[in-house]
């Protein structure tokens, strides 16, 4: 799960990680008000108005504006930003609609650095990555100059050692040109240790500050905040429900998530209902292998109920792009009769206007086949998944 920059900064503040002062705003009037307030509070005439969307590359895409002319100019800027489709390298060509803005005090920046924490699955530890190349796409740095990314791993029992943070501080030469290098180094070490604790306690999967800035006065400040959470930990973070911005999520994927299903929209026209992630993925693969194109990834999981299967099948049935449906089940925990009942219940409600190929195997397969046969639905049975894939692709082509 992703959250907005301003929400990330609120979490940073709880952990004592320095951020610029700022306010979230939903209208241009609120932006003007926030600007006025910031100028009065900080005695700095410059503010930055930042579009809040769940994608990186906002600055390059034109979603971050420096305002030097006070509240009136900030308001005019906000009017342009709110409602625009912001396109970045992470949004896709259609962009993402801007509905929230963050107004932040301007800083006297001396240096921009990169700091990122991710779960490193191969090392089975949090990896702390730092680079002197801040404020640019880290993917580009990783590809072109990987030696410029420094990495330390966090022992889950001990936490990030102060020595590890110091190693990074010296390698970045964080104190360079600051009035009191010793203080700047110690501020960096403290920030990094707090961030590591935050990552663990808040069950993050990614925590990125790009850029982390050193001000001319030698302060170390998180100018950006990107936090992703590990969805598996949602059960112990009730507060995440409030942090979620549904406008940023794919509505169909959200609907599936609420129903306890795993769903990903794709560009093709053959809807798939499968149990098990591996089987669901390879069902997509085999459809493409025989010349078709899958409309979705859908894993109903191992313990789905009839209602969940019905919901899943209804989602496929009601998608306008779907020209054919392939149900591919190898029942282990999942019983074939439960799948069959769900499919029949959904088609009774919504009707079946496209070809349907069903391949059932495993637990209670005979019962499942019987339910489908007695339903009177126009179903093409298939013996294997490759047989099924060929049949659905042929049926969709024939339409």
């Amino acid at each position, binding site marked *: 799960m992703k959250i907005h920059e301003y929400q990330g900064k609120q979490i940073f503040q709880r952990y004592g990680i320095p951020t610029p002062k700022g306010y979230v705003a939903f209208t241009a009037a609120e932006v003007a008000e926030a600007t006025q307030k910031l100028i009065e509070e900080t005695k700095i005439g410059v503010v930055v108005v930042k579009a809040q969307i769940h994608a990186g590359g906002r600055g390059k895409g034109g979603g971050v504006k420096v305002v030097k002319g006070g509240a009136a100019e900030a308001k005019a800027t906000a009017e342009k930003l709110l409602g625009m489709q912001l396109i970045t390298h992470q949004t896709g060509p259609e962009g993402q609609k801007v509905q929230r803005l963050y107004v932040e005090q301007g800083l006297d920046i001396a240096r921009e650095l990169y700091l990122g924490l991710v*779960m490193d*699955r*191969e090392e*089975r*530890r*949090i990896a702390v990555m730092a680079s002197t190349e801040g404020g640019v796409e880290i*993917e580009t740095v*990783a590809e072109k100059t990987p030696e410029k990314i420094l990495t330390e791993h966090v*022992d*889950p*029992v001990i936490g990030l050692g102060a020595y590890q943070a110091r190693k990074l501080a010296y390698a970045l030469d964080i104190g360079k040109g600051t009035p009191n290098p010793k203080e700047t180094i110690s501020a960096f070490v403290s920030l990094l240790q707090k961030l590591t604790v935050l990552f*663990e306690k808040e*069950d993050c*999967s990614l925590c990125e500050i790009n850029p982390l800035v050193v001000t001319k006065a030698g302060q170390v400040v998180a100018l950006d905040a990107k936090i992703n959470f*590990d*969805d*598996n*930990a949602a*059960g*112990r973070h009730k507060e995440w429900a409030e942090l979620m911005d549904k406008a940023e999520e794919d509505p169909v994927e959200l609907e599936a998530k609420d129903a306890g299903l*795993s769903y*990903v929209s*794709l560009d093709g026209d053959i809807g798939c209902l*499968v*149990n*098990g*992630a*591996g*089987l*669901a*993925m*390879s069902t*997509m*693969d*085999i*459809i*493409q*292998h025989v010349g078709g194109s*899958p409309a979705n*990834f859908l*894993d109903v999981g*191992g*313990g789905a109920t009839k209602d969940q299967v019905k919901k899943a099948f209804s989602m496929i049935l009601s998608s306008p792009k779907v020209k054919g449906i392939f149900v591919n089940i*190898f*029942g*282990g*925990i999942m019983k074939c009769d439960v799948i069959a009942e769900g499919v029949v219940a959904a088609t009774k409600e919504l009707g079946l206007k496209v070809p349907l190929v069903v391949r059932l*195997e*495993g*637990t209670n397969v005979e019962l499942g086949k019987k339910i489908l046969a007695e339903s009177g639905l126009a179903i093409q049975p298939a013996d*294997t*998944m*490759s*047989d099924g*894939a060929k049949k659905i692709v042929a049926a969709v082509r024939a339409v």
Partner: protein
Amino acid sequence: MAILVDKNTKVLVQGITGSAGSFHAKQCIAYGTQIVAGVTPNRGGETFEAVDPDGKKVVVPVFDTVAEAVKQTGANTSCIFVPPLGAADSILEAFDSELGLVVCITEGIPVMDMVRVRRSIEGKKGKLVGPNCPGVITPGACKIGIMPGHIHRVGKYGVVSKSGTLTYEAVGQLTALGMGQSTCVGIGGDPVAGLDFVDVLKLFNDDPDTEGVIMIGEIGGNAEERGAEFIGKYMKKPVAGFIAGTTAPPGKRMGHAGAIISGGKGTAKDKIAALEAAGVRVAPTPSDMGTTLKSLIGR
């Protein structure tokens, strides 16, 4: 002989009184697995009843702790069906009692919990399989987990896989071809887990009863690449492979927590190339896993 489990394996089930735990414990007993104990805190003293393959009633005692269950019954293996937020603690409890094998079926354990678990069990002698996996089965001897037992046959071919249903798919094909299985191991689809491909391939390589292996991977991480490296260097037996997710879009989590292409890494294409370079024959579709292994046998 097979690997990891055989007819002498004595299993305790953590979470035996829950709905998944009780259903599958019954299925395992019906398959012939020696389930000797159950563990559910605050339910010690209760019993759990099931029926073995001969139709005889089996009464399994339930204990409050793993330590007590081991002491009373001599269990040497655990199977875990505890809900996600408590499962890491259950794994640690099993390792604390020095069980030789811990199979965790639970899906949805927070990654941070598994990071701590892996750190904590470092250097201990027990082996962890999973989480988020179907379990381990040595056909005709011992089934620990949720796989449908009836599709398996006793035989000489090993299966190791990140995906449950694709394992069933492979086993179904092997059985239809008359190729029984030595042991099938589901290592699970989580980013941080127990045994990986290399660990299981090593066991198959050293097992005199295994004559060939099907290895089933998926997008995300580089466990498949490391497996390929091992195969290229050390594997004495033919290996057929399959990688799921050729058509998966980057940046999207495909069901399994670990099945995600991030930063252009972990694609099916790279994994297939690594396997082929190591001499693995990769099945073009998941329907061809069995025939692909067959084509490698007896050459």
